[in-house]
């Protein structure tokens, strides 16, 4: 298969893309970094052929500048296939880069398989109700892969570090300030056990019971979107679903989750799903291994007592 160019603004995700490119059988992998020596060193350490762009006029907040730099790299390195990370920064760049180089583009890709010259990509469609398998028929392809789809490439025999020079136009986007997100830096994607709270939970007073249970199980509390954005009981870092995190825990214990597709897309890869609901007809029950119809507060209290 063709040579693959990889880029992510995050070094850890660039290392995942390196694994992805190797696994689909890329003839060669060329990793591009922009104003990030540490990432370039990490990639070299993992055996990549790195092309480091060092140009103060390129500001990562200016997507047009990043896309233009990558398009120039693609031109200079003669690659047709680009893997980006499908984090927000990567998705924003993907469309713009694809437009410049006249490529077909797929984002939020959750699995890749090479089939001859084609790369078959899986991604959610219809709001997560279905999983589509798609290929880009254009020669030029931009594929943005969801973070954590592949393991980060481990350090190994050293690759090479090369400088790459690109031009930058005056920027129309000025970075004024960066604010770190307040407080909660929980990583629910890394948790082996999730206690997930949905709108079926009647009172915020019951939330500590869920937190106690998560603690006892060595897991984390997560929630459906409305619990964080409408009710504001929990931080947005804890949202599971299409617009939140896609989690693959060993166990998901769901409390008061009705089972809308926008939610289930984020939990359907869990190994075991137990759903506790007051409504025995909740559609979540059809997608669960263990189903219990009971008062949520009582079940939480009993579980905490038993564990």
């Amino acid at each position: 298969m063709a040579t693959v160019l990889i880029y992510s603004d995050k070094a850890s995700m660039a290392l995942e893309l390196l694994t992805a490119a190797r696994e689909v059988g890329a003839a060669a992998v060329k990793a591009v970094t922009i104003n990030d020596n540490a990432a370039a060193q990490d990639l070299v350490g993992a055996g990549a052929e790195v092309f480091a762009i060092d140009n103060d006029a390129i500001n990562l907040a200016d997507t047009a500048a990043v896309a233009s730099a990558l398009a120039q790299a693609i031109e200079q390195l003669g690659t047709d296939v680009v893997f980006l990370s499908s984090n927000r920064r990567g998705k924003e760049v993907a469309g713009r880069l694809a437009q410049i180089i006249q490529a077909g583009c797929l984002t939020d890709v959750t699995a890749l398989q090479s089939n001859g010259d084609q790369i078959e990509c899986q991604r959610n469609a219809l709001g997560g109700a279905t999983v589509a398998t798609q290929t880009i028929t254009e020669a030029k392809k931009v594929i943005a892969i969801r973070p954590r789809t592949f393991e980060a490439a481990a350090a190994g025999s050293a690759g090479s570090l090369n400088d790459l020079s690109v031009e930058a136009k005056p920027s129309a986007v000025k970075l004024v300030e960066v604010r770190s997100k307040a407080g909660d830096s929980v990583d629910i994607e890394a948790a082996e056990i999730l206690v997930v709270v949905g709108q079926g939970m009647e009172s915020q007073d019951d939330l500590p019971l869920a937190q106690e249970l998560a603690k006892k199980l060595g897991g984390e509390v997560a929630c459906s979107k409305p619990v964080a954005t409408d009710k504001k009981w929990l931080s947005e870092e804890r949202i599971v679903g299409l617009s939140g995190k896609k989690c693959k825990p060993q166990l998901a214990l769901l409390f008061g989750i009705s089972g809308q597709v926008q939610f289930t897309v984020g939990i359907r890869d869990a190994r075991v799903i137990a759903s506790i609901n007051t409504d025995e007809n909740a559609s979540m029950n059809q997608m669960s291994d263990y189903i219990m119809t009971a008062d949520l507060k009582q079940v939480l209290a009993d579980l905490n007592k038993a564990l």
Partner: protein
Amino acid sequence: MNIVVALKQVPDLQQIRLRNRQPVLDDVPLTLGNIDKNALEAAVALKEAQGGNVIALSAGDENIEDTIKEALAAGADEAFLVADDQLQGAESSWIATVLAEAVKKIDQVDLLLFGEGSADNYSGQVGSRVAEILGWPQVAYAINIEVNGSTATVTRSLEDCDEIVEVSLPAVITVLSDINEARIPSVTQILKAGKKPKEVLELDDLDVELPDGSPVETISNLAPDSQRKKVVVKTVDELLQALAAEGVIRR
């Protein structure tokens, strides 16, 4: 200030049924994307604060003339539509070309807003592609937009931080649903929506010709094969026994 909001006509996802893992789209009503409605709300809020004109832009099949009434009821002043049956389910790059050509036909656009992704495909490409075609700067994932003369100050929400950027206008901005709560139009607004001005073009009017083959080919599109046990448990004790037997908890 002219604010254009691009909205996508999509099947109402809540009403899609699955049959043998195949999505059944027959008779599913059409609506506008949820995040698109947040983009519209952001535009209407800017207009209410600073004056201006909000134009709802959409490209879709002939149903779009009806579907767009939702946006006119929710505060758009007029609609600019490209209605052509070739556009039904058209690929992102094609839609981007059509929308960009349509924007070129609208006078003095200061801001072009999108939702961060469409409700159905959620690829998040179209805003970025349109920005590139127009040669405009862009800021995606906005949770706040303030316009000050010839620039806008926008808060871009990334996974680990918020970035406050100043972007020169005209610009493309895509919004997160967190930016606001879209208003629900009143009955009077819904009744008035049908009388608001609409300009409807076809692809020929834009000199856009769609290529023959799509740049993206869909091999299959099926609901995931969910093989869950669906065991009903009656007591907490039974639940714990089952989970212990699965090896996911220790008792």
